[in-house]
């Protein structure tokens, strides 16, 4: 058994940045004939390699457009890398954007089972967790109301409750700690801390060195798709602060 929860091995990601997206046949043939079908290439990630040990909490830092979100999507298995490979050990809970799997015509209750199934959990498992999820989301009697009538705060609270009710091995966080009002924020932070105490592996994307220092023990910095620094959170945060100041 490997002691690594996540192994990212020489991953590169190439995007075709066609200035206008061709999605109809007429346009396609016009461009084919006029030979304008050449795409502009863009490397979102270039030869990125790192390993995360089980129980480690890795902060991913970098300026806008550095490839942080692309990296998370590659790790989550949503994007397949153009080159290189990603190895994952255990159940991964993506929290890239909460509530993406909800159906607005469904009630909160029905959505718990739909969203849970999308994440690959069985109905029986979700039934066991149901009360906990409802209680944590603080939705109360609104759980049987169609989701189209929910406020955005209610939606993300429910999304957060479902995503963390399961005990994942690897948690991917993309600045989602800011859910709901101050009280719920505190509660959700506490929930994540609890998960960390249980030894969950975390990938955390943030611009805030303060947050990274608080949550992570290791960190990496991405610049223009390349890995420029990696090490313990404290020293990497100092490097990042220097980078921001010298910008």
């Amino acid at each position: 058994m490997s002691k690594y929860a996540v192994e990212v091995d020489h991953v590169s990601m190439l995007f075709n940045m066609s200035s206008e997206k061709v999605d109809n046949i007429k346009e396609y043939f016009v461009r084919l004939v006029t030979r304008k079908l050449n795409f502009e290439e863009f490397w979102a990630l270039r030869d990125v390699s790192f390993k995360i040990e089980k129980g480690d909490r890795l902060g991913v830092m970098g300026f806008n457009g550095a490839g942080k979100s692309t990296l998370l999507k590659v790790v989550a298995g949503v994007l397949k890398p153009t080159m290189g490979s990603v190895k994952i050990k255990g159940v991964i809970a993506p929290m890239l954007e909460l509530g993406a799997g909800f159906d607005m015509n469904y009630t909160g209750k029905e959505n718990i089972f739909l969203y849970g199934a999308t994440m690959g959990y069985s109905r029986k498992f979700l039934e066991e967790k149901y009360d906990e999820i409802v209680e944590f989301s603080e939705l109360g009697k609104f759980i049987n109301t169609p989701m189209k009538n929910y406020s955005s705060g209610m939606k993300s609270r429910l999304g957060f409750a479902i995503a963390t009710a399961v005990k994942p091995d690897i948690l991917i966080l993309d600045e989602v700690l800011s859910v709901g009002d101050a009280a719920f924020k505190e509660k959700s932070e506490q929930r994540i801390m609890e998960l960390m105490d249980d030894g969950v592996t975390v990938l955390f994307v943030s611009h805030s060195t303060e947050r990274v220092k608080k949550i992570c023990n290791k960190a990496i910095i991405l610049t223009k798709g390349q890995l420029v620094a990696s090490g313990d959170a404290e020293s990497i945060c100092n490097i990042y602060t220097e980078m921001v100041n010298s910008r």
Partner: protein
Amino acid sequence: MSGKAKMKSHFGNFLKYRYLIKELVSKDIKLQYRNSVLGMFWTFLEPLLTMIVLSLVFNRLFGRDSSKVVNFPVYLLCGKLLHEFFTSSTKRAMRSIRSRASIIKKVYVPKYVYPLSAVLSKFVTFIISLSVLAVVILYFNIANINPITVTGNIVWALLPITVLFFFSLGVGMILATLNVFFKDIENIYDVFCLLLFYTTPIVYSIDRLGDPSTSAVARLIRFNPMYGFIDMFRGAVIHGAEFFTYFDMNLFYYCCGFTVVVLIVGFTMFYKNQDKFILHI
């Protein structure tokens, strides 16, 4: 990964996501008629009303001169139900990837889950709507207007239905893939379905097109696999007593062969392109 391990992980993945397939199918069915007064009843009412309208129009127009068509409304309903299943399931599968863009971009889900559940949910609706056929046959038999002798051979109807399910799945996979890259397919396919409706003997009998040995159109229509499915289904339901003389083995082999080809093409296209979906939706 070795081939065996790959197969095993594919199968494990399917087991893990069978709950999602179940959830998506029941969601489609539940939401279809939510907030409508008659609710699920529309599954029966819609084909019944369509049958009445089409019978009024086409029975008067073409007369009842075909010896093969014992009972025009029942004949029509058989064809209409199967055609409706095929078009509605393939249309739904076609849109299934594009309409799930927001989730496909965020969470890893095996993508075949979406076209598969689209076809499955329409299949369940189709099976439920078959009961309207039973009611209509019962009505004609009780009223003694062109009664239909239903025999045990009706179980053979399961054969064309099952093959049609896989045929629709194959076509749905092809359309879902194409639709990601070319959105025009949605518009083209609507027109194609209309064409299919009139080139399949649904509102008319194939005998009207003349003898296949002399008429090119009659020969051509037989290449349409929908004709095979509908003809076999009618054979089992309407011509139960003489089913085995009615049943055309070659036509059945043709439909099965066509289905296998469509399935292979559909799955290959889908699997080869699924990693690119996210970049285009």
